[in-house]
């Protein structure tokens, strides 16, 4: 499903730098993600990928650089914005170590994602006026629709903590989708999944991009998934961006091979 507005950028990151004391975890990283693109961010452990994610999603305030989101309301610089404001602007994320709300039902977990798209206040909750009731019903319906797409409807009233691992990963994605993002950030979505589950996940991610026209940025260590799925790949090592390009280009990039496998002994 190609769109004509595919070349519009969703996210622009310019010279992003993040220092923790004397340690530079992210060092002048640039990135641009186009509408409807699947971009992977790879690199060895400790390369600064998750820190980069946390900067973009507002968990950390970056030391310097610009993060610009292109929304339908125009360009917004989101440095130093709170995570919930970033989510409201259309960046939704999942976590490397699953962070669901364990003692809430699966459906409620997804409905939490609707929070920033709904408005009901305390008074509305107490009076349950027609407007609030409709909003609640819509939130439940939309959430149920998302669960249908992800394939978790049979577990809708189950506590999230009772879900098997693969389903929990999926539920995180469902929850993120409920916030109506323009860009979905997935932090190691396939971690701990078996090959069959990974296969399913690949299909799901592609479906999200094609049907919902959501751009996707993912951190992943599963190279098969990355090479299969991504339109472009960025490679980070020691906080720096060492390569960027299509999967083919990255595969043959000597810098990348060096970062992953080390240099040859007889130089």
């Amino acid at each position: 499903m190609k769109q004509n507005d595919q070349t519009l950028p969703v996210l622009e990151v310019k010279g992003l730098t993040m220092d923790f004391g004397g340690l530079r975890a992210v060092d002048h990283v640039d990135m641009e993600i186009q509408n409807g693109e699947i971009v992977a961010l790879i690199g060895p452990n400790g390369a600064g990928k998750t820190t980069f994610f946390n900067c973009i999603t507002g968990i950390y305030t970056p030391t310097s650089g610009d993060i610009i989101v292109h929304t339908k309301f125009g360009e917004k610089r989101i440095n130093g914005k709170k995570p919930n404001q970033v989510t409201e602007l259309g960046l939704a994320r999942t976590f490397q170590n699953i962070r669901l709300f364990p003692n809430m039902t699966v459906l409620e977990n997804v409905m939490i994602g609707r929070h920033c798209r709904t408005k009901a206040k305390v008074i509305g909750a107490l009076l349950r006026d027609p407007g609030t009731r409709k909003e609640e019903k819509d939130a439940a319906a939309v959430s149920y629709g998302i669960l249908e797409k992800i394939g978790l409807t049979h577990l809708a009233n189950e506590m999230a903590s009772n879900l098997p691992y693969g389903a929990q990963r999926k539920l995180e994605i469902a929850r993120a989708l409920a916030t109506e993002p323009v860009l979905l950030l997935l932090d190691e979505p396939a971690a701990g999944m078996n090959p069959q589950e990974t296969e399913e996940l690949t299909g799901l991610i592609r479906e999200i991009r094609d049907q919902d026209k959501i751009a996707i940025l993912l951190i992943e260590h599963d190279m098969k998934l990355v090479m299969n799925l991504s339109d472009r790949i960025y490679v980070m090592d020691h906080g720096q961006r060492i390569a960027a390009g299509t999967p083919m280009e990255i595969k043959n990039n000597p810098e990348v091979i060096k970062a992953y496998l080390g240099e040859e002994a007889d130089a």
Partner: protein
Amino acid sequence: MLNELKKSLITAVWFMFLTFPIMVIKVNTVYNTIVWRWHNLIYIGVGAFFGSMIWRWLHYKKTHISERNIRERLKNGLQNAIVDNKKVLYTLIAVAVAFTFAFPHMSNAYQINIMTTALMYVVLGLGLNIVVGLAGLLDLGYVAFYAVGAYSYALLNHHFGLGFWAVLPIGGALAMMFGIILGFPVLRLRGDYLAIVTLGFGEIIRLVLENWNAFSFGPSGISGIDRPSFFGLTLNLSQSMTALYYLVLGFAVITIFCVNRLQNSRIGRAWLALREDEIACQAMGIDKTKTKLTAFALGATWAGFMGVVFAAKTTFVNPASFTFLESAIILAIVVLGGMGSILGVILAALILILLPEYLRAFSELRMLIFGGSMVLMMVFRPQGLISNVRRKYLFDKMNFGGEKTNEAK
């Protein structure tokens, strides 16, 4: 089996050793002789032996059998039968309502008085339940808001002669304001640190009331507060006690209604999410600041209302009514009942307030029984009396036809 006996034997010997100085040796101070009461040692030994057997048997049952069988059976049988089966539920509610309404006509003034107190604690428990049970913010200074409500009625009545009904909303609003005032500095805190700060806040309010004589009349308190008026009727003492009972009952019903609606609303879900995982909650677009402040403010409001009622009920307030012990009891109600569970909180409030009253017959032992039952509760049912049941959405029954076609467009 032999192993079990050995364990119990060791426990028994250990208990005998520990209690030896107090249970066996008795110094007769008149004749300066020592009385050796060896028979006590035997009682302790036998008691501890069988006690530990029973203890471990219960533990075993809890971890092995109950995990699969009893819990499942209980859950499916009892809880679901009550909650899911509307007929049973409505019958139970009808019986409870009939009982609570008929209560004043079939009991004496003392009974009505303690029942009123118990219902007040139901409301307080449900208010704190918003903060601790739903939003997961451990608040150890809840009684401060109760004090704010009580003193706002006491002072406004003393100085300006304002009546109960005029002060009720003022007391609630003032408590809410204090809730927000406390909320702001503790926004960044969680868990233990939050508990310490709220504990300090509760003590600050109490100490200010105790020491600022010009404002609050210090430890001697304020007496002669008016009882609430009801439609200009002149009531004698027992009639006004009954009226107050119905007032508090009404309050409890309204509170149950409100908390029930809140916990299944957008705000309620945000509170739960905040309790479950703060970072994920923010990442899902929930404004942490606003959510926390709403929880604090709403929780405090109920305490403020109850404070006004408390002042009107006792017609006397002094700082001694607002010690940390009060906060602890209200917190115990929430924890004992089951965090976030309305039914549990009601049950726990009734048990925790009524039990010590009815145990007055064993007045020397009542604190022991009270403490002992609390410990047993926490060992065998740490999730509380009734764990919170989340709302189930039945989709085949809900009609989404309209919405779905809208979305497809």
